[in-house]
C-alpha cells in the first residue's frame, strides 16, 4: 500500500502506532472467582466475596480463561509460555477493591507472534504481536447518581481480560483500524472473546507518535479506551496532527495518557487527574506459577477452527476470488459460512458478488447484520441455482431477490407464482423475434444498411415483449440469424 504521510510545514511526517487491546475472555465465571460475567446485571449482583476483596479471600484460577488465552495465542501465531506468573499491580482506585490488579508482568502466558492485516486497497501487511497476558478487569464507578459521591459497582471486577500488545508496526490510521478489525475477527472466529466493542468487551489503547521518515521513534502519547474501529482511525489521525503541530512549533510531545473525544474531535490530556504511578509489581503470593504441558497446548490447537487468514487463502485458491473479495468475506466467520453455503449452489465468483454487493447492499440499507438477514444462505443459493440452470436471467434474479428480502419467501416460489421463468423454448422466442422484425421494417433496413449496433435495440424490444423472460442468449442468436441471413 502507498505510504501514508502527513504534510506539515516542515515536510512530510510518518505516524508510528502500536496498540494494546483489552479483550474480555468469553467465560461463564470470572478469572479468579465463581461469580458470573454476564452483561447488564443489577449493581453488585455478580460479586463474590473474592471479587469484593473481603479479608482473607483468595483467588483460584478459572481453567477456561487459561485455555482461551492459549487458543488466542495460537491464533496469533505466537509463542506459548508453558510457565507464566501472575503478579500484583498495586494502585489505589475506587473501582479496584483489592488495591491491586492481578495481572501478568514479566512472564506472560503468550509471547511474540504476528498476524496479517488486510488493507483497504486489497494489499496485506504483517503486524508483530509483542505479548498477550491475562488480567482482571476493574469495577465501574458512576458519577452522576449523587452530587457528592461516586457509586461503585463491582460486577465487572475480576472478569478475565486478555491484554494483547502489538509491536509499533502500524504506520497509518487505516493500518491501525485494520489491525483492530483483524484481531476482532480472530477472537470471534475462535470464540475467545465476543468482540463487542459497544459493550466494552473489546477496547483499545492506542500509542501514537510521529517522526520524519527514517528518523528514530518520537515520544508517544497513549490514547485510552477507544471503543470502535472507526474511532481508532479518527483518533490516530487527530493525535498525529496535534503532535506534528507541536513539533513544528518547536515544542515537545509529552509521554502521557490522553483521552479521545469523538464528539469534539480532539484528544485531551488526562494528566491532571493522574498521579505518578509506581505499580510495585511482584508475583502474587496467593497464586503459584501457572503451568501446563504440550498436550494441553496441542489440545488447544486442535480446537481451533480455520482462521481468517487460512480461510482467505482457501477462498482465493478454491473459489478463484480476488484477495479483496476474499478478505471481505472472511472478516466475519458468519459471513464466510454464509458465503460458502451460497457458493455450493452456483458459480463461486457470482456467489461472492451476490453476497458482497446484492446482499450487503440490502442489509446495509435495512440496517441489518448477516445474523438477521431475511434471506438465508440456502435461499440465496437456490436463487443462484435458478440462474445457473437458466431458469431466470440475472436481471429477473435481482427483482426476485428484492422480493425475497422483503418477504423472506423462497426464490422458486416467487418465480413460479409470478411466472418469471425464462422462456427457453426456441419456437416461442422465434415467434416474438419474427413479430419484432415484422413490426420494425425501418430499423431492419438501417441494420442491414450497416448500423449493426442496432442489435441491442432489437434485443431490448424482444425482451420487453417477452416481459424479460426470454433467454437473452437465444434472442441474440435468433436475431442475428434472421437479420444477417
Amino acid at each position, binding site marked *: 500500500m502507498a505510504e501514508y504521510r502527513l504534510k506539515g510545514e516542515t515536510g512530510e511526517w510518518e505516524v508510528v502506532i502500536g496498540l494494546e487491546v483489552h479483550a474480555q475472555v468469553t467465560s461463564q465465571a470470572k478469572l479468579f472467582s465463581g461469580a458470573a460475567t454476564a452483561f447488564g446485571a443489577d449493581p453488585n449482583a455478580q460479586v463474590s466475596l473474592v471479587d469484593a476483596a*473481603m*479479608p*482473607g479471600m483468595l483467588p*483460584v484460577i478459572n481453567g477456561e480463561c487459561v485455555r482461551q488465552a492459549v487458543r488466542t495465542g495460537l491464533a496469533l501465531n505466537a509463542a506459548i509460555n508453558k510457565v507464566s506468573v501472575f503478579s500484583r499491580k*498495586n494502585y489505589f482506585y475506587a473501582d479496584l477493591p483489592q488495591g491491586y490488579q492481578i495481572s501478568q508482568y514479566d512472564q506472560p502466558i503468550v509471547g511474540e507472534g504476528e498476524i496479517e492485516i488486510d488493507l483497504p486497497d486489497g494489499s496485506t501487511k504483517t503486524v508483530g504481536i509483542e505479548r498477550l497476558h491475562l488480567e482482571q478487569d476493574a469495577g465501574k464507578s458512576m458519577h452522576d447518581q449523587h452530587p457528592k459521591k461516586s457509586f461503585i459497582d463491582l460486577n465487572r471486577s475480576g472478569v478475565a481480560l486478555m491484554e494483547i500488545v502489538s509491536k509499533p508496526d502500524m504506520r497509518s490510521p487505516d493500518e491501525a483500524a485494520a489491525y483492530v478489525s483483524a484481531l476482532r475477527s480472530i477472537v470471534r472466529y475462535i470464540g475467545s472473546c465476543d468482540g463487542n466493542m459497544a459493550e466494552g468487551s473489546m477496547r483499545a489503547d492506542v500509542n501514537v507518535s510521529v517522526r520524519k521518515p527514517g528518523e528514530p521513534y518520537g515520544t508517544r502519547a497513549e490514547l485510552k479506551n477507544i471503543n470502535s474501529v472507526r474511532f481508532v482511525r479518527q483518533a490516530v489521525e487527530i493525535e498525529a496532527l496535534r503532535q506534528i503541530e507541536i513539533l513544528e512549533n518547536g515544542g515537545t510531545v509529552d509521554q502521557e495518557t490522553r483521552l479521545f473525544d469523538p464528539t469534539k474531535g480532539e484528544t485531551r490530556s488526562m494528566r491532571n487527574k493522574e498521579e505518578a504511578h509506581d505499580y510495585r*509489581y511482584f508475583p502474587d*503470593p*496467593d*497464586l*503459584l506459577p501457572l503451568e501446563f504441558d504440550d498436550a494441553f497446548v496441542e489440545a488447544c490447537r486442535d480446537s481451533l477452527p480455520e482462521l481468517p487468514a487460512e480461510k482467505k487463502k482457501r477462498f482465493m485458491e478454491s473459489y478463484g476470488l480476488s484477495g479483496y473479495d476474499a478478505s471481505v468475506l472472511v472478516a466475519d466467520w458468519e459471513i464466510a459460512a454464509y458465503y460458502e453455503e451460497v457458493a455450493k449452489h452456483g458459480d463461486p465468483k457470482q456467489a461472492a458478488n451476490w453476497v458482497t454487493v446484492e446482499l450487503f447492499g440490502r442489509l446495509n440499507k435495512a440496517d441489518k447484520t448477516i445474523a438477521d438477514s431475511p434471506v438465508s444462505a440456502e435461499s440465496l443459493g437456490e436463487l443462484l441455482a435458478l440462474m445457473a440452470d437458466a431458469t431466470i436471467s440475472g436481471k429477473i434474479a435481482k427483482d426476485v431477490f428484492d422480493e425475497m428480502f422483503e418477504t423472506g419467501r423462497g426464490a422458486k416460489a416467487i418465480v413460479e407464482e409470478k411466472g418469471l421463468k425464462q422462456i427457453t423454448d426456441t419456437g416461442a422466442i422465434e415467434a416474438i423475434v419474427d413479430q419484432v422484425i415484422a413490426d420494425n421494417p425501418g430499423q431492419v433496413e438501417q441494420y442491414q444498411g450497416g448500423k449493426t449496433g442496432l442489435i441491442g435495440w432489437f434485443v431490448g424490444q424482444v425482451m420487453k415483449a417477452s416481459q424479460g423472460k426470454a433467454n437473452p442468449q437465444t434472442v441474440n442468436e435468433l436475431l442475428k440469424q434472421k437479420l444477417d441471413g
Partner: protein
Amino acid sequence: MTDLLDLTLTDARDKLVAREISSVELTDAYIKAVEAARPLNCYITETAERAREMAEASDRRLKDGKAGALEGLPLGIKDLFCTEDVLTTAGSHILDGFKPPYESTVTRNLWDAGAVMLGKLNLDEFAMGSANLTSHYGPVKNPWKRQGDDKDLVPGGSSGGSAAAVAARACLAATGTDTGGSIRQPAAFTGIVGLKPSYGRCSRWGIVAFASSLDQAGPMTRTVRDAALMLGAMAGFDPKDSTSVDRPVPNYEAALDGGVKGLKVGVPKEYRVDGMPEAIQQLWDQGVAWLKDQGAEIVDVSLPHTKYALPAYYIVAPAEASSNLARYDGVRYGLRVDGDSLIEMYENSRGEGFGEEVKRRVLIGTYVLSAGYYDAYYLKAQKVRTRIAEDFAKAYQQCDVLLTPATPSAAFGIDEEPSDPVQMYLNDVFTVPANLAGLPGISVPAGTDDQGLPLGLQILGRAFDEETVLRAAYALEQAAGFTGRPQFQAG
C-alpha cells in the same frame, strides 16, 4: 470447677465421649473462666451465648453417638480468623464493626468437628508483632510473672491472646497463626505447646492475610497430644486456597507413639547466637541429652544462612503485607474517615485506622517494592529465601528433625519493649527460618529460667512431616515433664 479447667483437650474429649462430663458443663466452666480472665485482656469478643448453643448441640450429638473429633470442646479463636456474623477485628481499628458474612475454612473445620467457640482472642494488629503490644484493643498480659516481681509481662505475639488464654485456662485450646513465629514464640513465653504446620497444610481461606507466602494457622494447646488432635481437625485440603496442598490428613495422635529411638536429631550450630541467656543454652543442651537418652542419634548440622533469615523476612513479609492491606480503604467494610476527595478519604482512613507498627511495615513494604528497589530488596530476599530452604534440605539429608531453642529470651515486661524496631524483630530469630522455608515447627515448654519464667524448645521437621515433629516433641515433653503453672489462673 477447677478440675474441669485442668483437663487437657484430649482428656476432656475422652471424658465427653465417655459421658462423664457434658459439653455444657465444661463450656459453662470456661465461660466463667473467660470472665475471670478479663484482667489479662485476652479476648476481644466473648461469644458466651453462641458457646452455650454449640455446647448443647454437641451434647445432643454425643448422646446420639455422632461425636466429631473435637465434639463439645470449648476453644478460643485468634481474631484473625473470619467468623460468620461475629466481629472480626485482626486487632485493628480499621476493621471496626466488621462482621464477616463467611466462616474461615479452618474454623469451619473446627465447628464441623464439633468444637465450641468461646470467643475471639486478642492479637498484635494484623498479626504484626512479637509482644501483643500493637493491638488496637490493648496489650495482653502474660499470666506468668517473674518470681517475686509483680511486673506485667508480655505473652509474646502475635498470637498473644491465644497463648495467654490457653496458659491461664481461659480456653481449652486456641487457634493461632504463625507468619514468623507468632504461634511458637508466644507458646514459649507462656509455657504451652504451639505448632506451626507446613505451609499449605491448613487453608488460609478466611484468615485475614498478613504475608501470604508465610502465613499458616496452627493449634496452641497445653500438651503435644492436644496439638496433634487439634491439628487433625484444622488441617486439610481446601480448593478455595490455591496454595493448599491436596494430601490426606494423617492421624497425628497415633503418630505420637513409637519414641525417638534411631531418630536423627540435628543441632544447628548457627542457632547459638550472641547474647543468648545461659538458661536457654542449658535448656537446649538438656533437650539434646533428653532425646539422646531416649535413643535418638544427635547430629551436628549447619544452616549457614540462618543469620540472613530475619532480614529476608523483614523484606518479604512487609512487602506482601503492604499489598495485602491495600484492601482496607474505607469503601467496603470497616473504618471510614471522610475526606474531600477519594485520596483524602483513603489517607485519612488508613492513617487513623492503622497503628504505628502496621504503618511502619506497610511503608517498608511499599518502599522495597517501589521502582528501582525491587531487585535490590524483594528479589534479593526471595533468592536468599531459596538459599535458606536449600540449607534445610541439606540438613535433612543428615537428620530427620532439628532441635533448637524456641526464643532467644523468656517473656519480658510490657514496659521493657525495645524502642528500636530491629531489636524487637530479633525475638523471631529462631522461628522465622521455618516460615521462609514453609516447614513445620513446634514449640514445647521444657523448663524455666532463673526467674521462674517458662522457656520452650523447638522441633523443626521436613515439609508435611508433622508426624515426626510431633513424635519428637512428645518425647521431649515426656522427658521434660514440665508442670509449671502461671501465677494467674482463671477459675
